[in-house]
């Protein structure tokens, strides 16, 4: 009899203290949740991948309760994954809420412009041509100009290299440079490559090739030509004098909420825009 009461008392004590501690923890947890917690899944563009990865790394430090998964496959995978609910944030090289480059407009998504991306029209390092006008680039990709001597170079056939349909860089090239003129996608002097790295290899290994790529990729056996006499530099792209640039977007389903919102705000913060973003050769939008 005595023994049972002792047990009962002990049990009561343990239970009540457990409840107390539990309650204490819950309130603390709630306080943190009011700050930020949850899971962010980012999918999409590989061009923006270095940016999102860096941002995720820094964001995790200041928000230890948030789990972030970052991956990259292709631009169109960004809005698609978000629309399907596979990812919470989609990265895309164009504003996917508009119909661009043969892709449908993704209704119900909200686009956040996070960075300006400078691109470059590239030729082989040994090519004597240093400057091309937008008109000349259009004519080359349309197949109207086929020899380098027509634009002040050697008497050699121009080899036109293009990215695969749906590439974010190609979408921006068609949008900013081609301006509605259709690229001639056939002929024995035309080929397509899969990735930015393949583009660099193709142009650096062929003395008569022309292509286009993110400005950050320009080094080694290739060089960026000036467009309309303006040098391809981040400064010129930032001021808008250099015309070949695009914007990187993050997309969410509807207005961004919770952790997603905090993450996007972090990327748009002055600290990140003027710090890591600049170091990665993107141009701040704020």
């Amino acid at each position: 009899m005595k023994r049972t009461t002792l047990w009962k008392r002990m049990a009561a004590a343990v239970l009540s203290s457990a409840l107390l501690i539990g309650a204490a923890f819950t309130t603390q947890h709630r306080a943190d949740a009011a700050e930020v917690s949850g899971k962010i899944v980012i999918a999409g563009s590989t061009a923006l991948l270095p940016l999102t990865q860096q941002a995720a790394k820094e964001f995790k430090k200041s928000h230890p309760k948030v789990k972030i998964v970052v991956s990259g496959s292709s631009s169109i995978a960004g809005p698609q994954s978000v629309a399907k609910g596979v990812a919470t944030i989609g990265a895309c090289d164009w504003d996917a809420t508009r119909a661009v480059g043969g892709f449908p407009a993704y209704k119900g998504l909200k686009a956040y412009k996070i960075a300006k991306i400078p691109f470059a029209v590239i030729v082989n390092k040994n090519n004597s041509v240093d400057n091309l006008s937008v008109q000349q680039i259009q004519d080359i990709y349309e197949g109207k100009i086929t020899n380098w001597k027509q634009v002040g170079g050697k008497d050699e056939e121009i080899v036109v290299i293009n990215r695969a349909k749906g590439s974010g860089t190609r979408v921006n090239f068609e949008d900013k440079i081609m301006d509605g003129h259709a690229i001639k996608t056939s002929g024995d002097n035309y080929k397509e490559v899969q990735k930015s790295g393949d583009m660099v290899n193709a142009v650096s290994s062929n003395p008569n090739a022309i292509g286009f790529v993110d400005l950050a990729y320009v080094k080694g056996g290739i060089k960026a030509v000036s467009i309309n006499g303006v040098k391809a530099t981040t400064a010129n792209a930032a001021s808008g004098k250099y015309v070949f640039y695009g914007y990187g977007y993050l997309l969410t389903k509807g207005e961004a909420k919770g952790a997603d919102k905090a993450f996007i705000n972090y990327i748009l913060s002055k600290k990140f825009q003027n710090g890591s973003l600049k170091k990665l050769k993107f141009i701040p939008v704020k």
Partner: protein
Amino acid sequence: MEKLSPDWTDATNLLTARRQSRWAAKYAADRFFRFLCLGSIIFLGAVLGAIVLFVSETGFLVFRDVSLWEFFFSSRWDPEHGKYGAAVFIAGTLYLTLVTLLIATPISICVAVFIAEIAPPWLRQWLRTLLDLLVGIPSIVYGYLGATLLIPWIREHTGAPVGDGFLAAAIVLSIMILPTITRITDDALCAVPNEWREANYALGGTTFQMIVRVVLPAAKSGIAAAVILGMARAIGETMAVVMVIGNVAQFGFDLVTPTSVLTSHIVMQILNVDFQSTTNHALYMMAFLLLLISISLIMAIRRLRLKGGQ
């Protein structure tokens, strides 16, 4: 098993019961193993079935928007303007395989004959090891070498402006499938009974006559199986091909015009298309065609093996 009878003593009863329980445990283990094996097979079959079903189901959706005639016989691939002719890729795959086999088969058979019939034993062992090593090299390595070494060479010697095309792809694929065809042909040649070779010499035949008249005809079905296996590898190869073929939706039968085949086109486009689009369905249909081709090749090999065994 032994039957229990009521007039036995307790001791024997206990012993028998124990024996019986041990037997039951064994029986259960056997049953379990049987179900495990059966389950594994069903799982594998289900995966294969699911692949065929899913790929074909998505693939056949293309025919809601595109006619059979257009898909198989039109060469105009221009999804932006609603043109989904896949003839370029289908013809390209068949043509590339043909050119590859024309290059690889004679060389492979010569190498195999050298290894099996002519080389001294120490060199034979050495060559076989070398070929086994070559089989294991990842295809992307071949593709990279093709893109950096072979293509500039082709450009220089043919005068082609780009250099990508069937010639580059066929050479890369030939080098890739050469070890496969050679090793299997080698095995087939070694399976020919030695008495037949001795009979040739006894009749006064030369080594050349022995190889051409006796060994090669006797190993015919084995060699055919080797070639088909190489063909299956060539048709399905993607990474090495996409790096050297040029990836343009146009015919390239002159060997040095950039063109495209089923595998390279699928890998170029699949990440960049909308899930629900006709383009995506068309790509799945191409994948289904590849699946059909490889399944029929494997069935052909089984047929040949069965014939060879008789």
